[in-house]
C-alpha cells in the first residue's frame, strides 16, 4: 500500500493495521526516516532548522507502486506499506515509513531494506533545507546510488 501525504502518521497504528486479520504473518520489519538537524554533506557544520519536501504528484505514486511490486516479486511478503510525507517538516518530524510483513523475519527485513534503498533513488522527491546561510537544495549522495545498485 502506498500513501503520499502532508499529514503525520502513527507508527503503532500503521503497523497494527498491516498485520490485522492475517495470522500467517510472523513478523513486521519497519524503517522510519526522520528530519535531522544537520546536513551530512556539510560535515555537520550546517544546522538545518526545517526541510521542505517537494514531489511530482502522479509520478510519485506510480514509482512507489512499482517499487512495492518489485519487493513483492523478490520476497514472499503478506503486506507492504510505504508512507511518504511532503511539505515543510522540522527536525524530529517523521518523513517516511516503510513496513513489510511476512511469515518469516528474513523476507520482511530484507524487503524493508530494499524498499527504502530503492525509494531514495527512484521516487521523485526533492528536499530543500533551511539553514542559517539560507535555503539550499539537498544534493543526491553517491552512497544512495551505490546502495540501490547493491540490490541488483
Amino acid at each position, binding site marked *: 500500500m502506498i500513501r503520499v501525504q502532508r499529514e503525520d502518521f502513527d507508527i503503532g497504528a500503521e503497523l497494527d493495521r498491516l498485520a490485522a486479520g492475517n495470522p500467517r504473518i510472523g513478523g513486521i520489519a519497519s524503517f522510519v*526516516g526522520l528530519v535531522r538537524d544537520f546536513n551530512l554533506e556539510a560535515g555537520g557544520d550546517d544546522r538545518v532548522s526545517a526541510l521542505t519536501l517537494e514531489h511530482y504528484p502522479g509520478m510519485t505514486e506510480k*514509482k512507489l507502486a512499482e517499487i512495492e511490486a518489485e519487493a513483492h516479486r523478490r520476497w514472499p511478503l503478506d503486506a507492504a506499506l510505504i508512507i511518504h510525507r511532503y511539505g515543510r517538516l522540522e527536525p524530529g518530524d517523521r518523513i517516511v515509513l516503510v513496513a513489510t510483513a511476512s511469515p518469516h523475519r528474513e523476507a520482511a527485513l530484507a524487503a524493508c531494506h530494499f524498499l*527504502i534503498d530503492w525509494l*531514495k533513488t*527512484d521516487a*521523485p522527491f526533492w528536499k530543500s533545507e533551511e539553514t542559517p546561510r539560507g535555503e539550499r*537544495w539537498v544534493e543526491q549522495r553517491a552512497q544512495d546510488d551505490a546502495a540501490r545498485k547493491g540490490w541488483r
Partner: protein
Amino acid sequence: MSVQLLYFAWLRARIGRGEEELELPPAVRDVAGLLEFLRSRGGRYAEALADLSVVRVAVNQDYVERDHPVRGGDEVAIFPPVTGG
C-alpha cells in the same frame, strides 16, 4: 507539436515556473533535442540548464534517457536527481 513541460526543485526555482505548455519546432524529436531547444531560449532557461549532467528527465512519468522520443501531447518533466526518503 506541443508538449506539457513540468519543472521541479531548483530547476523550477531557476526557470521561474512549475509548468508550461510549449510548441516545439519540428526539428525536436527526442529529449536531447528538447533540452537544446530550451537552452536556446536563453535567459533563465540557458542558466538553469547550463549543466545537463545534473538534469534528469521523465516522459509520461517514466525516467528516460536523452535519446527517448518526444511526441505531441507528452508530459515531459525536468528535474535534478531525486533526494527523498
